[in-house]
């Protein structure tokens, strides 16, 4: 091993905290941040403690049970990834990103470029009654600073996760979204994460905090896209807090570059009688990992934690989900479906905890996978851990191919086998896509699924 490489190896593997090591781009960025973007003492403390955690944890390795099937070594070893800076914001025009806007959200569109909120690219006329601020700026806001302090890094814990730690350590922009009590937002809010650039391998750390106050309701659409289509690294964290009676619909569409690394955490905290309906669609990235956790902190909350992953040749998609029933009378529904083609690989790990005393819990979890190729592979692990005795819980997982009887049925109606397979695959995906209530997202996904399938026929 060359000396240079060895040095980096020491930093990451042996957790040497030598801030001067030039190899460590992340540390350098952190140091620069301390100089150029100082913040309130409590934020400085959070960033420092998060950087400390990243120093000791590093990137997760496959020896960690939670990362058994997802190998980040190529990312951890690669010194070419550099935290993106704010400068690139000015180079992008509204026109260049207009195709990413879902028409239904047009007037409520927030854009983060490599993690930096861009007021110029955003349109907020539709966000009447809600508050959308740069998260970093909101820290020192007289009105909202105390809310950020109360909720930032509360649910997306960085103590045991190097990726969340790194995201937290490099906090310098992001988005704070507040839906005040009793506010019902009619227009869905779209958050577009634009990543990548043609001439560098950026690492970006988008950070979003959503606070839905008492009896508010809104729909949030997250969209991860790229203009450049190159190799880059996104490490995103979204935290959501739903207060009593709040209702949130959350669509997350990940369409990163096919060369990108995408790791993300979504952490939601559910208050009494609140409702959280999440649908995560994973289409892009060379390697994608999504950790979603929903904690039912009070009684009567209900959540849907659904998703679809479409994994093509050379792609890897990993979903880790935790649904934590802490209090009685909460209901959770989970349906994750996967379609794998080529040598695509997917992981689904879904934990449901029912804590002591969380009686009358109703939890249902299903993971279904459709393998279109003999080289595709999926590792699925639904897990239930129940510490209460009066609950209704069910879970199941399935991995299979196109059903021969269904295929024959379609053929018997004159549909050729290729088309019939596509139709059945489309139908498989539709169970998840069909629940999306925004037409333009649904039709985009339909087109994507059909396009991907078409490509498969021609291949």
């Amino acid at each position, binding site marked *: 091993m060359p000396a240079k490489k060895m040095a980096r190896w020491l930093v990451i593997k042996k957790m040497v905290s030598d801030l001067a090591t030039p190899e460590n781009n992340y540390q350098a960025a952190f140091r620069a941040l301390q100089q150029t973007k100082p913040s309130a003492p409590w934020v400085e403390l959070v960033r420092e403690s998060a950087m400390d955690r990243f120093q000791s944890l590093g990137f997760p390795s496959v020896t960690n049970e939670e990362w058994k099937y997802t190998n980040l070594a190529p990312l951890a070893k690669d010194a070419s990834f550099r935290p993106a800076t704010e400068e690139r914001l000015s180079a992008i025009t509204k026109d260049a990103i207009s195709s990413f806007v879902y028409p239904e959200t047009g007037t409520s569109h927030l854009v983060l470029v490599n993690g930096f909120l861009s007021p110029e690219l955003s349109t907020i006329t539709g966000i009447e009654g809600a508050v959308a601020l740069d998260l970093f700026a909101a820290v020192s806001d007289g009105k909202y600073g105390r809310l950020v302090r109360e909720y930032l890094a509360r649910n997306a814990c960085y103590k045991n996760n190097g990726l969340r730690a790194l995201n937290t350590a490099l906090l310098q922009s992001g988005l704070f979204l507040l839906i005040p009590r009793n506010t019902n937002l009619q227009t869905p809010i779209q958050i577009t994460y634009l990543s990548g650039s043609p001439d560098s391998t950026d690492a970006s750390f988008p950070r979003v905090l959503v606070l839905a106050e008492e009896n508010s309701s809104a729909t949030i659409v997250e969209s991860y896209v790229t203009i450049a289509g190159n190799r880059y690294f996104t490490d995103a964290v979204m935290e959501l807090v739903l207060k009593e009676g709040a209702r949130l619909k959350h669509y997350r569409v990940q369409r990163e570059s096919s060369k990108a690394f995408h790791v993300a955490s979504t952490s939601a905290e559910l208050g009494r009688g609140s409702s959280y309906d999440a649908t995560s669609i994973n289409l892009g990235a060379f390697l994608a990992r999504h950790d979603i956790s929903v904690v039912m902190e009070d009684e009567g909350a209900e959540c849907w934690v659904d998703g679809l992953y479409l994994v093509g040749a050379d792609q890897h998609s990993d979903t880790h989900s935790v649904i934590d029933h802490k209090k009685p009378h909460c209901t959770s529904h989970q349906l994750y479906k996967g379609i794998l083609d080529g040598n695509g690989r997917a992981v689904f790990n879904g934990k449901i905890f029912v804590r002591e005393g969380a009686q009358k819990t109703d939890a249902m979890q299903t993971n279904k996978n459709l393998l279109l190729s003999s080289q595709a592979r999926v590792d699925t692990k639904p897990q239930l851990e129940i510490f209460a005795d009066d609950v209704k819980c069910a879970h199941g997982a399935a991995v299979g191919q196109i059903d021969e009887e269904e295929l024959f049925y379609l053929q*018997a109606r004159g*549909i050729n086998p290729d088309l019939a397979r596509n139709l059945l695959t489309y*139908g498989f995906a539709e169970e998840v896509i069909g629940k999306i209530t925004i037409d333009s997202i649904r039709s985009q996904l339909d087109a994507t699924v059909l396009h991907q399938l078409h490509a498969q026929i021609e291949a």
Partner: protein
Amino acid sequence: MLEIRNLHATVDGNEILKGIDLTINKGEIHAIMGPNGSGKSTLAKVLAGHPQYEVTGGEVIYEGRNLLELSPDERAREGIFMAFQYPIEVPGVSNAQFLRLAYNEKRKHLGEEELDPLEFKDFLKERAKVVEMDASFMSRSVNEGFSGGEKKRNEILQMAVLEPKLAVLDETDSGLDIDALRVVAGGVNQLRTPENAIIVVTHYQRLLNYIVPDYVHVLAHGRIAREGGKELALELEEKGYDWIKTSAGQENGAVARN
């Protein structure tokens, strides 16, 4: 239209059809009857081209062509339709989507222009009257959550849309109450023309009160044991299948296994 000669077929290595001969002309309705295990459903599936059924002997000539050389979808596009005994559920695909795709595949095959969703919607609405089907069924996933009767009606709706030359109804009466039976049979009768032919596979004579056959063929042990007009069905209703089984065994010199 259809000529079946000495047809032998196996499933999982077991011979089910042991030499079937049958000639069907356009405008005719043929009933295939027989006890459970006699091979009548197998005959229907062999005609439709189900991959689990292997033809081991004989031939099937459809409109002058060797039917057995055609894939199931080619057969369908050429005008063969089998109404399934157990219609398959296709989650996530709406009935309208499915029917339009199937219909347009056939139109393409015939060199006709495809219908766009709006044109097809009007056409489908018209065809749905044949089986008194509500428009709400069109946006639902194919057969998913349908009752037994609704599934069978949906089969006949597909027949109404695809307008086959030869329809094979595989135990379409099974699981139907008397009202549903009347609707389904009424639909089939409306679809009957002098140009098409219908094979009704059934265990019971009941359906044949509504869809009146020109010929009745009774299968036993993979062979046709009796043939006659519609009165044969009535005779079976009265005497049961044991009578056929016994006589079929004697005629063929075989020993009845059960």
